[in-house]
């Protein structure tokens, strides 16, 4: 939150490069059209597809800010989706299903937070437990099958509905980002998180409720993961315990790192993480849309291209790398 501006430079530049690349390959990339009251276009697709990662990245920003990490978010997404679909399947109301799914996410977050803040487990170990167990729980809830959601279910609006032409997932994600940025700016929460991540012992001596702050960060993470899970389930009209949110914990951590946060905690930027999430989704979308003389990029290369781009971005941002460059110059002189 502190040094806004400079640290957003590289992510912004990276996004600009990605967008320029797309615009060159496909002049229609920036076109937006209103089709049946719904805005369509590549840019909207990116935001829409990226909404789950964006939500995860927001929560992950706070968790990493406290010096922690949450590996269980993908599994929590699956749990939330399975809980909602299962309840709907057995005739529960939409509101009940939504509340139960979000409640499951909250419970998961509190569980993680308790293991870390109260029991004192290391965040990696504590959330690794739920990363493994969570998917198991989701499979138990869904009996190991993909639970379909009825095509006319109201809950599908979360994934497919629009408001003023904007897809609902986009609104949820951007709304959450705005709300969180507002909270971080208007309250002391952002400062407290940076303190806990920056020096836990000093925070305790200064009278901060270190445990509660930790607990709150993981709880919020759980809720955001549940919402991401609901979006994912509503998007495909089914809860797939095996694949929902798979590897998204890594995407969201990457997004936060790209956004310039310190993985050791104590420094974070919501705007940065937002950019990071958009960059990650833009890479995926760009690869999918790119075609070279009628041939698309082989699917097998997708992940490697993405990894290469992220590596390059992390390198230019790292201070080690930057220190190394002037050194080379002075050695040559």
């Amino acid at each position: 939150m502190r040094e806004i501006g400079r640290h957003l430079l590289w992510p912004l530049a990276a996004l600009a490069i990605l967008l320029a690349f797309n615009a060159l390959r496909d002049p229609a990339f920036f076109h937006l059209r209103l089709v049946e009251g719904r805005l369509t276009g590549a840019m909207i697709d990116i935001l829409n597809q990226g909404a789950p990662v964006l939500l995860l990245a927001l929560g992950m920003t706070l968790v990493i800010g406290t010096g922690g990490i949450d590996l269980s978010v993908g599994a929590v997404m699956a749990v939330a989706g399975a809980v909602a679909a299962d309840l709907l399947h057995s005739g529960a109301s939409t509101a009940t299903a939504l509340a139960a799914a979000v409640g499951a996410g909250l419970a998961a977050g509190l569980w993680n937070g308790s293991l870390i803040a109260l029991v004192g487990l290391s965040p990696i170990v504590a959330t690794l437990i739920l990363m493994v167990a969570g998917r198991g729980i989701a499979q138990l809830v869904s009996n190991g099958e993909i639970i379909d959601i009825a095509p006319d279910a109201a809950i599908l609006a979360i994934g497919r509905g629009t408001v003023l032409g904007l897809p609902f997932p986009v609104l949820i994600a951007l709304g959450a980002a705005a709300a969180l940025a507002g909270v971080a700016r208007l309250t002391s929460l952002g400062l407290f998180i940076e303190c806990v991540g920056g020096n836990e012992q000093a925070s305790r001596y200064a009278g901060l409720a270190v445990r509660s702050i930790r607990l709150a960060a993981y709880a919020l993470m759980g809720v955001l993961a549940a919402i991401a899970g609901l979006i994912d389930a509503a998007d495909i009209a089914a809860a797939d315990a095996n694949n929902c949110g798979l590897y998204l914990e890594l995407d969201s951590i990457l997004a936060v790192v790209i956004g310039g946060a310190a993985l050791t905690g104590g420094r974070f930027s919501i705007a940065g993480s937002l950019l990071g999430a958009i960059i990650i989704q833009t890479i995926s979308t760009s690869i999918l849309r790119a075609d070279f003389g009628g041939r698309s990029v082989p699917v097998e290369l997708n992940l490697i291209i993405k990894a290469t781009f992220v590596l390059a971005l992390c390198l230019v941002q790292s201070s080690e790398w930057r220190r190394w460059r002037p050194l080379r110059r002075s050695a040559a002189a």
Partner: protein
Amino acid sequence: MADALVEMREIVKTYPGVVALDAVDFTLRAGEIHALVGENGAGKSTLIRILTGAERPDRGRLLLNGREIHARSPAEAQRLGVAAVYQEINLAPDLSIAENLLLGREPRSRFGWIQWGEMRRRARQIVRSMGLEADVSAPLRDCSIALRQMIAVARAVDQRARVLVLDEPTSSLDAAETGRLFDLMRRLRAAGLGIVFITHFLEQVYAVSDRITVLRGGRCVGSHAARDLPRLALVSAMLGKAASAVAAERASTRRADCGGAARLVAKRVFRRRSIQPFDLTLRAGEVVGLAGLLGSGRTEMARLLFGVETRDGGTISINGAAMHRHSPRRSIRAGVALAPEDRRAAGLVPRLSVRDNILLALHASRGWLRRLPRRDQVALAEQFVRSLSIATPDLRRPVAQLSGGNQQKVILARWLLMEPTILLLDEPTRGIDIGAKEQVESLVADLRVRGMAIVFISGELEEVVRVSSRVVVLRDRAVVGELEGAAITAGSIMERIAGPAEGGGHA
């Protein structure tokens, strides 16, 4: 003498907005212990960082044995024979002494396996050659800070260092440990090493140094043989004041009698392996000094009173409220503040700004929802930066960039703005320069007059004697005596620390 080991000539180093070193000369000879003294911000650290390759000068030359060198990193400087042992020792606490001594240079067999037996043997040899005694397979974590420091020195020497920089090596040591370190330094001097010694304790400067170089405001204001530089002249060189003014200032701290309402009452409070049961009543308008050697239980006492550690028994009441489930939060709400001994580990959040650090306790007490408006934040922080004369270019500067004395003042500011009725100060003057020290001492006197109840912990007896209206003496984790009024003298405190008859040589 012609055998200059290190010559630094006209070293200039500027940081944005500050000239840290302005054409400084420094000469270190082989076989001498050379004290480098100066107030915070005088440029000592910068000069050392340049000597050890951590920084490069903007201008000037650095000669080692008459040859110009350009070390680009501490590792490179070390290869050239310049090693530093810093205040915060950079060893690996979980590895054994032997591993620490030979890290990166482990004896290996033909197949690349580490030869543990050989390693222990070599380590024992090194330890013995330094005149130390230690079990080399014990993890470093279990050693005293003093021993760790000496292990760090031993490691440097064993890597064929010819120039050894000791930056505040004694700040965490008690008198006996300091003595042992000095013996080691003298031994190394006899072996022809050049030692740069930085300390804030003037007694120590005179105890071991052959030469003294004084820096002030980024300039060298003098380099003298220690025996040719009277103590008062040294102080006035450091402060840039006439000697008589310094003397007058020192005499001006007075104490008066005391005894207001009881603010804090502790009864039979103890914690196993930490401190034996003690009683303490702290009244408004008094300064209670806690005196004792390092590890005698002074810090433990303060931490129990503040609720950082949970006690195993006894009762504590603060301003009439019994502390049942004690925590720093509860203490703060009841009107207590603690400025901890280790300000880097327990005080500052290094990445945050000076302003955020000053306001941290206030923010915490208001909770996350009741954020102080930015205007008020700036006004409050500015007020305390001014009243404590904290030297910082601006409030947004990360607190890690301030000097030790100013960091200490930031923590004092944090607590003073909470307007506590009870102030616990654990080594508030450690590692800060003389000017800041005197400011802290007169601040304490001032707060006492205004009715605050203060606990003052310091390893410097003279200081405890100067500021305290009552002194509680600790030895071996127990309270062993109490002195009041005119009975408070360094001698009487030392007698009680030393203990009865046999005069226990505990460390």
